């Protein structure tokens, strides 16, 4: 489950132009990287053109999947992943990125690669490589699962404690009866029949 690239594409002009992008092509061989990168850029621009504003799409192509979300302002975000990456996480990542991007660069004129700098994309692609780390819902789910495991262990230890308590009760019962016998004997010592 990997993310290969994240693009922010401007799709209110034809042909669409990528504004900012970040790629993680470490899994490919060194000489293939540039061609794969170009192919991904081209693919993201194409699918960003074809997407209507306010629409989300997932497009499958050879062994990549491109998730695209177009916003009404004229920008679209594209995330290119492999086939196993959950689309929901990809779309939540896109939501986040596009929100930040539009709040930072609201003006249409600023949408050129030179003027927009968005260094956090590099961080995002690293954190979201593992969808369970990046996505909030999955993080919550994971923590809840861990808590559940801890709770199961706690319940087991409470059961053990119960058993030990039972044994303690029995032993204290025995002790109590023994001490009573002891007392009776000692009392009997004090009474009359000395010789017999």
């Amino acid at each position, binding site marked *: 489950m990997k993310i290969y690239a994240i693009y922010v594409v401007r799709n209110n002009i034809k042909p669409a132009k990528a504004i900012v992008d970040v790629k993680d092509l470490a899994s490919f061989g060194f000489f293939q990287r540039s061609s794969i990168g170009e192919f991904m850029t081209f693919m993201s621009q194409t699918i960003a053109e074809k997407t209507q504003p*306010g*629409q*989300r*799409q*997932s497009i499958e192509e050879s062994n990549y999947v491109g998730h695209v979300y177009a916003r009404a302002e004229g920008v679209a975000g594209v995330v290119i992943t492999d086939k196993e990456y*959950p*689309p*929901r996480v990809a*779309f*939540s990542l896109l939501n986040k990125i596009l929100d930040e991007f539009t709040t930072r660069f609201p003006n249409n004129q600023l949408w050129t690669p030179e003027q927009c700098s968005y260094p956090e994309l590099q961080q995002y692609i690293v954190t979201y490589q593992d969808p369970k780390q990046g996505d909030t*819902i*999955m993080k*919550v*789910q994971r923590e*809840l*699962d861990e*808590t*559940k495991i801890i*709770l*199961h262990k*706690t*319940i087991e230890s*409470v*059961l053990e*404690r*119960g058993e030990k*308590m*039972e044994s*303690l*009760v029995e032993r*204290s*019962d025995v*002790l*109590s009866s023994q*001490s*009573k016998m*002891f*007392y009776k*004997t*000692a*009392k009997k*010592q*004090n009474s009359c029949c*000395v010789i017999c």
Partner: protein
Amino acid sequence: MDRTAEFKAAVNSLVNRGHIQTRHQPNYSSNHPARRGKEAAAYADFSRLASAIGKEIIETSTKLDKLTKLVKRKALFDDRPVEISELTYVIKQDLSRLNGQILALQQHVRANAAKANRSTRQMDEHSTNLVIILQSKLANTSMGFKEALEIRTESVQATKKRHDHLLQSSQVQTGAIGPGQGQGQGQGHSPKAQSQSLALPPSSILSPLRNTTRSPIGLVPTTPTPSQLPNPYSNHSNIPQSGRSSPYMQQQSSVPSHQQQYSNGSSDIDPYSSSVHRRKGGRSEYEDDNESAGPASMLFQQQQQQQQAEQYVQNRSTAIEAVESTLQELGGIFQQLAQMVAEQRDTVQRIEANAEDIELNINEAQNQLLRYYRNISSDRWLMIKVFLTIIFVFLVMSLVG
């Protein structure tokens, strides 16, 4: 009884009004019940307007009655959809116009009330009451109109279902006949598209109807669909063999626009006319695309988009539901834990009681032993007696031996 005085007063008031208005007006304003009491010029004006509005309301309600009668008919084939749509259009226009007139009347009344003196106070109250009555009548009429439309949509849905049932059984035969009747390439596509779109309609019809009855926010993504919906249906209208089906289909496309309007909550004409324009635009689009894509692929695409948008939202909702259920489980586990600890509390109390008993017993025993030891160590007299007995026995044994 002699009512000539009243008659004279009425004639005088008519004459007064005749000086102010044009000559055409007094004819129908003579029957209006609001014409009692003092009549100033402004009041005459107002009462004229109010009577006009009242009359129009009555006309609209008669039209609405006709519409409801038409709507309630259960005939499968004699539906007369053109009449119904015309009537709805006319009634809608009337309602909006009446609304505007009543608002104007209300403003008129308020303007008069602003410069009121004590003598006209009763008239102002009367006029405001009149306005309120007219407004309530208009509201009742629009409620009746809305109910009529609802009944209409239900009956259209039911007829569509029945129609599907009937047509699907005879679909094979019509599919065989279709290519024979092909009037060119466009028509050649039609039977396949017809069978496809016949298979699809229940979901595609239900989905815009379902979507448009949601909150107004949900209307935005679904407004393209009414324009796309008429395409397979206008396809039907081109085919002579399914001439019967076309009225239903056209009605179907008008129905989502009605529903859309009513879920908007306003009685504007503009959404209706704009959706009508979109319908026409959709038809011309379809005729352009006829050679290239065909209606089936467009419908498929549009459905796919809808599905994807729905899928994303559904995925999110499933994930969140999973989180919620996990949380619930956790809550249950915590409760079990608390219960077990509470049960063990009893055991702990027993142990504590036992331990106290033990302590008590042992203390007592120690006391006894101490007493015994004291007895032994302090009681020399007893010891002397014991030793003397032993010496005596020893002596006896030695004397015998």
